[in-house]
């Protein structure tokens, strides 16, 4: 068993992927706690697709894909934040149009401009931890560390603003800035995860482990910690599944995360059903629970 577990870790490039996947699993779940509770999954998905176009542009222009993806995703996050704060409700349609359009531009650019890189770029669509190079791992660790550090520093403010933005603002917290900060953290998380999990599956990596944790606890901090555990466990399980079954890593990791969710939803405590989760969140001002 030990040999079976250790075998892939003997290869440097696999060990690198292993460490990267665990780090990504943890960051995604910590940020995912806010995403699940505030119903930001769709925005996260949009940011991932927009980041892809940033990656394509970076390849075309010949600079680091991290810079391209970060610029694209953070700009999109600021845009989405501004739109949703101005109009307040139902920004889904405009975000849907906006992100599909930009993603389409990325696809077109990819096939027009850079045929030779097509294989590489496909790994960003579906994720490949084997493509994580040494520099990439360093970027993941630094950016991930910054995201976790900021959440730790502003933990209580982010909690208050997520739970009750109006009262948080009236009590003197900079609610709009904190909500914007959350979207920026989400976009950085998406960018960090895209290489290993892929544009298409990033949102699952962010939402699923946190949602699994939500089914097991009534405490915000516990949900965040448990989510990180489920995220890391999914990364580890998916890593071995990917290695031994020879399947893409992104798909394998998300599949394990989904299985964990299904198991907890079925055998977990009854008082919190999956349906309660499905009908909550989503721009808390919109969806309400009867008193």
């Amino acid at each position, binding site marked *: 068993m030990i040999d079976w577990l250790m075998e892939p870790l003997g290869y440097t490039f696999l060990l690198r992927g292993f460490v990267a996947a665990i780090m990504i699993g943890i960051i995604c779940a910590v940020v995912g706690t806010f995403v699940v509770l505030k119903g930001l999954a769709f925005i996260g998905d949009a940011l991932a697709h927009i980041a892809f176009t940033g990656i394509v542009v970076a390849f075309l222009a010949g600079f680091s894909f991290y810079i391209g993806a970060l610029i694209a995703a953070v700009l999109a996050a600021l845009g989405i934040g501004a739109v949703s704060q101005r109009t307040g409700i139902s920004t889904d349609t405009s975000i849907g149009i906006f992100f599909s359009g930009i993603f389409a531009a990325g696809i077109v650019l990819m096939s027009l401009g850079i045929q030779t890189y097509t294989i590489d770029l496909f790994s960003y669509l579906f994720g490949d931890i084997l493509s994580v190079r040494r520099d990439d791992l360093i970027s993941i660790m630094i950016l991930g560390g910054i995201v976790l550090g900021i959440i730790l520093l502003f933990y209580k403010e982010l909690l208050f603003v997520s*739970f009750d933005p*109006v009262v948080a603002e009236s009590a*003197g917290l900079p609610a709009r800035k904190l909500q914007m900060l959350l979207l920026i953290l989400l976009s950085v998380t998406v960018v960090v995860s895209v290489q290993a999990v892929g544009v298409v599956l990033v949102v699952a990596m962010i939402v699923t482990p946190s949602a699994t944790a939500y089914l097991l606890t009534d*405490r915000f901090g516990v*949900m965040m910690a448990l989510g990180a555990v489920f995220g890391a466990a999914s990364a580890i399980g998916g890593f071995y599944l990917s290695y031994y079954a020879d399947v893409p890593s992104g798909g394998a990791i998300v599949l394990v995360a989904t299985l964990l969710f299904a198991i907890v939803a079925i055998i977990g405590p009854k008082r919190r059903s999956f349906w309660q989760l499905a009908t909550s969140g989503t721009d808390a001002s919109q969806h309400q*629970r009867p008193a």
Partner: protein
Amino acid sequence: MVVEVEAVPEALAEQPDLPAGPAAIRVEDLSTGYHDEPVLQHVDLNVTSGSLVGLIGPNGSGKSTLFKTMTGLQKPWQGRVLINGQPGEPGSEVAYVPQTETVDWSFPVTVGQVVMMGRYPRLGFLRWPRKPDHQIVDHALEMVGMADFKNRQIGQLSGGQRQRVFLARALAQEPSILLLDEPVSGVDATTQHQIFELLDQLCKDGVTTIVASHDLSCVAQRFDHVLLLNRTVHGFGPPEDVLTQDLLNRTFQSHLLLLRLGNRTFVVEDPDHFHHD
């Protein structure tokens, strides 16, 4: 709905009496609204420190907007709001308890955590709650009678209990001004009584409190001042001066009738407008 008001004098109180004490809240020629739609126009108001004011007016009369302007969430288009002599800014001085229907009750926080949120702005960034903060939270929970529920998730509480938890969070802010939007709607009589006992005590301690309420009977009996609002101030003063047929007609556009039996006065809903709310 029938409301009993003690001995209404014949003279109508058109203008609010200017209170003698220092003004906790001073509103001067305030106009504001949303987008291009004005909600409040030319509001003038002087609330003495330590008053308990009942704010009544029909739906859409601007009660919540007035509160938001006092907390600094809504900016005046014209005029100004002074809180203890200073222009109103969001902060701990004014605690606002909005109507709770927009709260996500499935959010994984406990009663104790929600009340502790009231301490966060005073704590400031990068500081964690310390022993005095925990003591203030415990005290606030005791004041509203919710100390036994500290570790419950908020979704497990009844409507009245939730109201009391949000009131406790406001108290944990240690405000000098408390603004409550419909705190006793959907609350049982016992809880309602407890909340008003608490508000009476807070006023004796010098906390200025304004309570928006639909419940005229409660306003008539429980408050030392009544503020009639419908886009502007229609009356402000002791209940016996302000709850008159003329002023209620102006505020509610004749949806309410004032009936007199001997020296007692009742406010009833006009049957023709029975479904106004």
